C-alpha cells in the first residue's frame, strides 16, 4: 500500500508525499495544486465547478493501441491522487524545447482568438487534444471539443477557425517525439493501491475490486467516487472536508466494455467519452443523449456508474437506460446481484444500492427493433443540466397498434420516472397523432413537476406533452 502518489509533469516524475506537505490534502484539486506552484499559473480558475473550462489541463495515459491518449479534463474537479501514474500536461508545456510556439498557440494568435486572454490557456489545452486526435476535424467535432470552454469576449468564431487551422498542421509535434520516453516513464511508475491518511482524512484508491469491496464494508459512510465530477463540488463549492473517500478510478475491472448476448456490458467506471464506438449505430438514442451530456472535459471523467449512482432527479442517462431496459450489477463482499434500472431509483438521490455495494456494471440489452429516441430540454444546448429529459421506446404491431411502450422522464419528479398512466392508455391503441395528443393529456396525472430555477411547472408539463408529440413525429419520419 502506497501513501504517496507519482505523476509525470514537465518531463519529470513528481512524487507527492501527503504526510510531508502541510498545505496539500488528498482532496486538493489539481487546479489548486498547480496554482500553488510558481511555474504553473497559466491554469485559471473561472468557476471551480467544471462549467467554464478555464482550468483545462490534459492528462496523458497509455492507450489500448500502444501510444498515448490525451484527454482534456477540468483540473478543478480532479483530486490529486486521480492523476497517479499519468502524465499531467499544462499550457506551460506546449512550447517546443526550442521555445517555439505549438501550432495550436500559433493558430490562436493568427486568428485573433484571444481578447482578455483569461480563458485562453483552457482553450489551448482543449484544442491540443483535438490536434493530437484529428488532422481534419469536422465543424461539429471542433465544437464538441470546445463545448466545455466558455469565452465571454470573442464570440468563439476565431477560436473555431484557429482549431481548424491548427489541426491541418497536425498531429506531429514535440509530444510525438517524446511519446516513447513518456510511455517508458509511465510504465516504470509505482503501482498498487494507494491509501493516504492525513489529519481527519482517509483517501483510498484501491486497484482491485476485492480491496474496494472490503474497504466499503469497513467505511459504510465513505464518499465513493469514480470520475468524481459530482463529489468534487462538495470540496470546491461547499468547502467540506470529506472524511473518507474511496476512489474506484484505478480498478481495471470497472473499465471494461464487453458484449453480452447481443447487448452491452458497460463497466461502471468507463468514462462516457469512451463509449462512442460501442454505441455507434446500435444505441443511437444513448449516443445522442451522451453527446449532449455536460462537456468533453467532463465526459472524459464522468461514468455511467456515477451518473446512475448519484441518482439525480434529472440524471441525463437514466431515462435512456431505462428505455433500453438496462439493469445494474452490484457487487459487495456478500456477492453480486443484478437489478433492473427501472425501479432502482427509490427517491431523490436514493437507490436500491446498499451502503456496502459497488456499482460494477450496467447491462444494456439490444433494442431489438424497437423505436427509441431520447430528448433533452435545456436552456442552453450544451453543458446545461436539463429542465427535463426523456427517452421513449415504442414497438408497434403490424396494424400500427402499440404493443409496448416506455415513456421515461427525468426532471418531472424527484427521480427518473415512467409515465405509467399515459403508457397504459396507449397500449393497444393505434399509434396516431390523435391518440398521442389525447394521451399527452394524461401526463398531468402522471406527474406534478415543480417550479425551480431551470423552469416552471407549467413549462415542464407543456414540454413533457410536446415531447410525446415530437416522438410521434419522429416515429413517422
Amino acid at each position, binding site marked *: 500500500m502506497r501513501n504517496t502518489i507519482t505523476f509525470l509533469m514537465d518531463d519529470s516524475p513528481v512524487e507527492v508525499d501527503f504526510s510531508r506537505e502541510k498545505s496539500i490534502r488528498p482532496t486538493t484539486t489539481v487546479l489548486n495544486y498547480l496554482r500553488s506552484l510558481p511555474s504553473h499559473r497559466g491554469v485559471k480558475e473561472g468557476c*471551480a465547478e467544471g462549467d467554464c473550462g478555464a482550468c483545462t489541463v490534459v492528462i496523458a495515459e497509455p492507450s489500448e493501441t500502444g501510444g498515448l491518449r490525451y484527454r482534456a479534463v477540468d483540473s478543478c474537479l480532479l483530486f490529486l491522487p486521480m492523476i497517479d501514474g499519468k502524465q499531467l500536461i499544462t499550457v506551460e508545456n506546449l512550447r517546443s524545447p526550442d521555445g517555439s510556439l505549438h501550432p495550436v498557440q500559433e493558430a490562436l494568435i493568427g486568428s485573433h482568438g484571444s481578447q482578455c486572454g483569461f480563458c485562453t490557456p483552457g482553450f489551448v489545452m482543449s484544442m491540443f487534444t483535438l490536434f493530437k486526435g484529428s488532422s481534419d476535424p469536422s465543424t461539429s467535432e471542433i465544437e464538441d471539443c470546445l463545448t466545455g470552454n466558455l469565452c465571454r469576449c470573442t464570440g468563439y468564431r476565431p*477560436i473555431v477557425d484557429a482549431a481548424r487551422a491548427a489541426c491541418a498542421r497536425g498531429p506531429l509535434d514535440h509530444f510525438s517525439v517524446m511519446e516513447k520516453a513518456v510511455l517508458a516513464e509511465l510504465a516504470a511508475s509505482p503501482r498498487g493501491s494507494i491509501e493516504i491518511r492525513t489529519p481527519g482524512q482517509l483517501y483510498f484508491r484501491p486497484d482491485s475490486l476485492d480491496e474496494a469491496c472490503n474497504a466499503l464494508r469497513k467505511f459504510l459512510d465513505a464518499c465513493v467516487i469514480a470520475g468524481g465530477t459530482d463529489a468534487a463540488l462538495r470540496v470546491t463549492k461547499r468547502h467540506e472536508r470529506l472524511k473518507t473517500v474511496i476512489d474506484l478510478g484505478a480498478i481495471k475491472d470497472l473499465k471494461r466494455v464487453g458484449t453480452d448476448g447481443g447487448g452491452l456490458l458497460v463497466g461502471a467506471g468507463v468514462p462516457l467519452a469512451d463509449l462512442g464506438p460501442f454505441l455507434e449505430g446500435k444505441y443511437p438514442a444513448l449516443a445522442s443523449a451522451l453527446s449532449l451530456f455536460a462537456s468533453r472535459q467532463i465526459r472524459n471523467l464522468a461514468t455511467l456508474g456515477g451518473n446512475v449512482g448519484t441518482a439525480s432527479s434529472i440524471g441525463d442517462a437514466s431515462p435512456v437506460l431505462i428505455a433500453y431496459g438496462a439493469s445494474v450489477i452490484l457487487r459487495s463482499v456478500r456477492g453480486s446481484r443484478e437489478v433492473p434500472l427501472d425501479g432502482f431509483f427509490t427517491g431523490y438521490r436514493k437507490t436500491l444500492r446498499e451502503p456496502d455495494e459497488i456499482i460494477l456494471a450496467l447491462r444494456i440489452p439490444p433494442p431489438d427493433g424497437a423505436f427509441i429516441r431520447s430528448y433533452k430540454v435545456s436552456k442552453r444546448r450544451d453543458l446545461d443540466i436539463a429542465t427535463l429529459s426523456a427517452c421513449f421506446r415504442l414497438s408497434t404491431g403490424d396494424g400500427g397498434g402499440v404493443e409496448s411502450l416506455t415513456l421515461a422522464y427525468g426532471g418531472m419528479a424527484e427521480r427518473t420516472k415512467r409515465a405509467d398512466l399515459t403508457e397504459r392508455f396507449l397500449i393497444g391503441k393505434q399509434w396516431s397523432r390523435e391518440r398521442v395528443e389525447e394521451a399527452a393529456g394524461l401526463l398531468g396525472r402522471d406527474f406534478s413537476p415543480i417550479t425551480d430555477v431551470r423552469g416552471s411547472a407549467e413549462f415542464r408539463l407543456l414540454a413533457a406533452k410536446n415531447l410525446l408529440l415530437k416522438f410521434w413525429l419522429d416515429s413517422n419520419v
Partner: protein
Amino acid sequence: MTAREHTGSLTHESAELHVTGEAVYIDDIAPPSGLLAGRVHYSPHAHARVLKIDMDEARALPGVHAVICHRDIPGENQMGPVIRDEVCLAAGEVLCVGQAVVLIAAEDDDTAWRAERLLRIEYEPLESILDIESAIRKNVLLGPERTMRRGDPDAALRTAPHVVRGELHTGAQEHWYLESQVCLCIPGEGSAITAFSSTQHPSETQAIIAEVLGVRKNDVVVEVRRLGGGFGGKETQANHVAAWAALLCRASGRPVKIRLSRDDDMIITGKRHRYLVRYEAGFDDAGVLLAVKFELNGDGGMASDLSFAILERAMLHADNAYFVPHMSVAARVWKTNLPSNTAMRGFGAPQAMAAMETILDRIARECGTDAAEIRKRNFYGPERGDVTHYGQTVENNRLHVLYDRLMESSGYSARRKAVDAFNAQNEFVKRGLALTPVKFGISFTTTFLNKAGALVHVYRDGSILVNHGGIEMGQGLHTKIRQIAAGEFGVPPGAVRVNATDTSKVPNTSATAASSGTDLNGMAVRDAITTLKARIASSLAGYFNDGAFPGAPSGGATLPEDIEFGGGVIADRNRPGRTMPFAAAMDLMVLRQVSLSATGFYAVPNIGWDREKGWGRPFNYYAFGMGVTEAEIDVLTGSHSIVRTDVLYDAGDSLNPAIDIGQIEGGYVQGLGWGTTEEILWDGRGNLMTHSPDTYKIPAVRDIPAEFRVELLEGYPNPNAVHGSKAVAEPPFMLALSAWLAIKDAVSAVGGHAFEPDFQIPATNEIIALSAARLRRSTSEAHT
C-alpha cells in the same frame, strides 16, 4: 511612412502571453511575503436590522490576523462612486443579500472560511422589495424622476390613425468576466499602500481606498496590467473588493488579497439593470411613427451606483435610429433590496432600444408589411428629420448606406420569401428573420469625463514607453495605442511598449468605459507625442544646421517644420541626406539635453448639453451598425438556433479591423446571451438563484450563428476621432436585438403573424415554447 500604414490587423499586444499562459493577472502575481487571504462575510438577508456583530471567536482562531466590521473603518464608511449612498460595510442595517458586513484576513482561504463560521451576527429581518412592480406600488424611488420631451406626444397620439401600447420586461444580466473580482493590496511606508486591482477605473478605486482609509490620494497607488474581462462590471464595483482588501491590509499590516469565488462574485456584485418599459406609439397607415411615449423603469438595487447615468443613456437611446416628431420619455430608478445594479456594455441603451424595436416590430405586424421596410421608413434622414428628441443633429448619418448594402449583401428579400415558404411547409419548426439598426452616441453623458491623459517616455535606444489612463480588458486598447504611437513616431509597432495603467503615472483619469477608450486615450497619447516630436524636431534641425552633421549640407538651413518622422528615420523632408535613424536620433537627443518625456492631454471639444432641459449636444458623434439575423425555433421544446447573421458596422477608418471585428462578434454574442439564455432569477427572499454557471448560461460555442458574416463599412472616415476611426465596444451588443426579433418572428409565424406573441428578454426556451403554445391555441380557436 504615414500614420495610416500603422493601421491594419496587428495582433493583440499580449496574444503570445495569452496563449502560453504567461500573461499575468492579479491572482498570478507571485505572492508577496506574508500574504493573507481576505474573505468577505455578507448579509444573508435582503433587508434586516443588524442587532449585534460579535467577532471575538473568529478573531481568536489561530491563523486569523484581522476581523473587522464598520466600527473598524479608519476613514469614511462610504463607497458610492457618484452619489454617496453606499456604505462600505453594513452598519445598522443590511439592504440586500450579498452586502458586506465583516471582513476577515487569515493565513489561507480555509482558515478564513472557518473563521467566518465563528462570526455571531444577529439580524432582525425587515420587509423587503424584490422587484420593480413592488417598488412602483410602494413608490420607493432611488432619486427624482427624469423627463425629456419634444413636441406634444399626447395630442399626436390622440389624432394618430393607429396606436400600439404595451410593456416590455428586460432581464438582468451578469457580466461573467472570466476573471472574478480581485485586488491585492501591499502596505508601504507610513500610510502608503499599493493596490493591484482588476478595475476599469483606477482613479476612482484610488479615491475610494483613500476615503475608507482616511488618507490622501497621494498615499495610494493603483496599478492595473490587464483585466480578465470587464464589460462594465469593474467600472465601479471593482472598487468594493479593493476597498475591502485595503481595509484588511491596513488592519493586519500585511499584504492581503481578496479574490471572489465565482458564486460570491455573482451574489455580491450588481448586474445589468432590469427594466420595465411601458410604451405607447402612434403611427400612420404607412407605418411611419407620429408619436411615442416611453416610461422607463429601472431596477437600481439598493444604492445608486451608476443607475442615473445608465437611465440617462437609456433616455437618450429610446429613439434608436428613428425620427419621432413627438416624443416623451419619463424615466425612474426604483430602489429594491438587491445588490446595486451597475454598468454593463450598452449602459441602459439596450433596454430602451429593445422597447423601440418592439414598437417597430409591432407596427410591421399591424401593417402586414415587412419589418425591415417599416424600419427604413422611420430612419433619421434629411427627408424625415435628423434632429433627435434631445436636440442633437444626427450628422454623418450612415443608416441609409448601411441599410442598402446590408439588404443586398444579406440577400434579405429573397430570404424573407424563403422563410415564409419554409414556415408554410413546417408545423413544428419555424424560422424568423429580422433586421435591426443601431445608432449609439459616443461620449460620456457627464461631459467633464470626456478627457484623458498620457505620459510618454522615449529612451536612448529608441524604445518608447507609453503610459495612459485606459485599461486593457481584452478590447485591444493597448494594441491600438501601440499602433497610434508607432504611427506618430514612424517606427514599427514593436518599438512601442504600453505600460501597466498606474495612477502614479497618469492621474485623475476617467473610467475605461462608454466605448471611449481609444478615442480619448489615443488622442492624449498623440498629444504627448506631438510635444515630443516638436522638441526633437527643433533640436535635430539645429544639429543638421550646425555643421557637425556629416550629411549633405547644401540647400540651406533645416527648419523644425521640415522634420518628418517615418519609416524608422527622422529626416528633413526637403533636403535629401539630412536623415537619421530613429534610435540614433534619440541617443543624440540625450546628448543634446532634450527631455524625452512628455505628458499629453485631451478633452473632447464641441460637446455639452443641458441635462435639466434634456437638450443639446451630449455626443461627440454617433456610431452606426446594422444586423440581419435568421433564427429557427423548435415549437415543441422552445429551443432555438441562429441560422445566419450578417453584420455591417461603421468603424470609420478602422485602426485595426481584426480587433474591431472581434469586438463586433463578441458584443453580438453577449447580446445574444442577454436576449436568449441568460436568465437571472432571485427567490422570494432576495437570494440569487442563478449564482454559478451551473444555472446561469452564457453562450457556448454551439450557440453562435452557424453562419456569421461580419463586415466593416469601408470608405467613411470619422472626422471626430483619432485617425478617422470610430468606437466599437458597446454598439454591436445591440445588434443582437436582430436575433431576439428573428426568434420572435419565428414564434409569430406559429400564429401566421396574426397575433402579437408574448415576448420578453430573455426569450428563454420556456418563453418561446409557452408563447408558441398560446399562439397555437389562438390560431385553432380562430379557425373554429
